[in-house]
């Protein structure tokens, strides 16, 4: 062994034995000050409220500051009432529908923004996405009301063209909620997809075309698989936001209730905090389950492929 090699070996040994453990420890200490504030915030404003909510949902009566007898009564009431079951199913389906639609509409938009060579066009598209966010969601939703009502712009226009006689019912039902939410959450889907599509080298598409793939196959075999993370992330985000959204369903849904509006009814009008808490827990349970399952599927797919 040459002198240089011996020296190098000794240096490696010293590093492994004395320096590295110290560095490792240092880095674990570092996590406390960096994570600390965030962790504290989460505990106070997220974990504690949830614990309180859980405990309320298992009580028959709500008296602030006290804990009465624990019961499954609220949950049994939900399970045995078709109204709640329907509302839950409607909410979850709405989540799937809105998430799928925003991703389908947003995909070409996100693709275009990440691929265009014109800087000005990119800015224009980004502005089109962001500017609606500068207006209150209430205002935007009332805008839809004006468009979609029986005597609104759309129906008037359709009658004028002679396509319909009466009116297409587009508000105070699921359609109203669906249209409103797709509009509200489209930018989120686009932004989530942009991150993912931006990482795909244009060479991938060129190579696929060059090897004989049609444009459609470039999308199905290259772009979609490579943007899977963005699709999954976008889906989960829009799904979670949709099933918990309140403003749009309450304005455009009329008597058509989703979980959030049902919870509001029970808190605001019927002042049954316990049932409302149980409803909130059920909704959260489904949301968490969907997120965990799709995350797991996404991870696994990623490894298999």
């Amino acid at each position, binding site marked *: 062994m040459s002198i240089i090699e011996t020296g190098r070996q000794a240096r490696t040994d010293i590093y492994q034995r004395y320096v590295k453990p110290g560095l490792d420890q240092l880095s674990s200490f570092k996590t406390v000050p960096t994570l600390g504030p965030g962790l504290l915030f989460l505990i106070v404003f997220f974990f504690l409220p949830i614990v309180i909510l859980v405990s309320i949902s298992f009580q028959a009566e709500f008296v602030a500051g006290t804990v009465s007898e624990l019961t499954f009564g609220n949950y049994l009431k939900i399970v045995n009432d078709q109204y709640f079951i329907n509302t839950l199913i409607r909410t979850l389906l709405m989540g799937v529908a809105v998430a799928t639609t925003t991703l389908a509409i947003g995909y070409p938009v996100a693709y275009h923004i990440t691929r265009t060579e014109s800087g000005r066009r990119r800015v224009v598209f980004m502005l089109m996405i962001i500017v609606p966010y500068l207006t209150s969601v209430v205002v935007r939703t009332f805008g839809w009301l004006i468009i979609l009502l029986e005597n609104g712009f759309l129906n008037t226009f359709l009658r004028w063209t002679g396509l319909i006689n009466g009116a297409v019912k587009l508000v105070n039902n699921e359609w109203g909620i669906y249209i409103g939410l797709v509009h509200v959450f489209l930018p989120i889907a686009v932004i989530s997809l942009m991150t993912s599509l931006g990482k795909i*080298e244009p*060479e*991938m598409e*060129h*190579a*696929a*075309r*060059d*090897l*004989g*793939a*049609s444009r459609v*196959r470039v999308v199905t*075999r*290259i772009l979609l*698989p*490579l943007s899977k993370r963005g699709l999954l992330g976008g889906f989960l985000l829009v799904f979670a936001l949709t099933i918990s959204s309140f403003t749009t369903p309450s304005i455009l849904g009329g008597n058509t209730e989703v979980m959030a509006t049902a919870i509001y009814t029970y808190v605001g009008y019927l002042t049954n905090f316990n049932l409302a808490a149980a409803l909130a827990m059920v909704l959260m349970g489904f949301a968490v389950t969907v997120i965990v399952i799709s995350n797991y599927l996404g991870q696994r797919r990623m490894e298999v*492929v």
Partner: protein
Amino acid sequence: MPHLEVDGIRKTYGSVTAVEDMSFSLDEGDLLTLLGPSGCGKTTTLDIIAGLTRPDHGDIFINGERVNDLGPENRDTVKVFQEYALFPHMTVGRNVGFGLEMDGVARDERESRVKEALEMVQLGGLADRKVDELSGGQRQRVATARALVKEPAVLLLDEPFSALDLKLREQLQVELKKLQEELGITTIHVTHDQEEAMVLSDRIIVMNDGAKLQEGSPMDIYESPGSEFVANFIGKSNLFDGTIVENGSGSYVAESSYSGTRFRGVSTREDSMAVGDDVTICLRPEKCDMQPGTPEAGSENALSATVDHKFLLGSVVQYRLSVDEPIYGDRADIDFIVEDKNLAEHGEFDKGTAVSVGCRPEFVKLIKR
């Protein structure tokens, strides 16, 4: 009929001309290199042949058939990308088989051809690996296999080795050349590396600013650079200005514009030169001889110089000299380079030695400007 013909293609991006009136043709089994600095339009030319870029003007013929209107997926060309562009979500085998799958080749045949292609590039048994588990050299081989497995009429290589270190690059160059000759596949290769071009090519086209400067065999281009740019780009050259003062039969005499030193040499172009024409005098470092002492006053093809630096480059010694006569005009900072292989004959020259540098007339190249 040539196997591939490129006829007068032109491509502009806004006000920038990427390729200007490029024409060449290629026989079956030939390897042609487009050589030039980055941004000279060589990759654009390659993409136009592949169908990835549409030319503003001009035609591409493969086997006599005009392919301008065919998309890249319908052209019988395959490109190996500079960064390989392997699909990260597929295994090595799926990557290599992708082209066949797109062409609708049945699974059984596909698998056997993929296996064959991987063995050809010495990656047999790695079909199930993920792309990100491969080294740079292995990725390059996968990219090559992915292209070759389709047995294209024309193989297009875009700087295929530029991401590799020198040793590996040299090894893969030789392997690729052997493979290309064995398969007899018509190939266009793009590089800025003149050594790579010399190793691989049957023919070289030197490009600059989107235009073809010179076309010929590697030897032609090295021995008879048609312009100062080519002389500078291909190998090392000692270049200085001169004027033709004598037109002999087959040889010319040029006089250095600044020192008046006379050089007898040959023209690098077909067209003849006349007395009074401006030329660039080109002396290749390895074609120069060095003797101790100073040349006789007024002698042709000889310069007096002093050794500034001496570098041992393995098989040769490179000397950097300062020439005593002002052949570079005001620019005294240019080194005159001589590479010497005959170490045994006269030994090495130390720093500070006064030498006489000479060059035989057949090695003095006079490039008309």
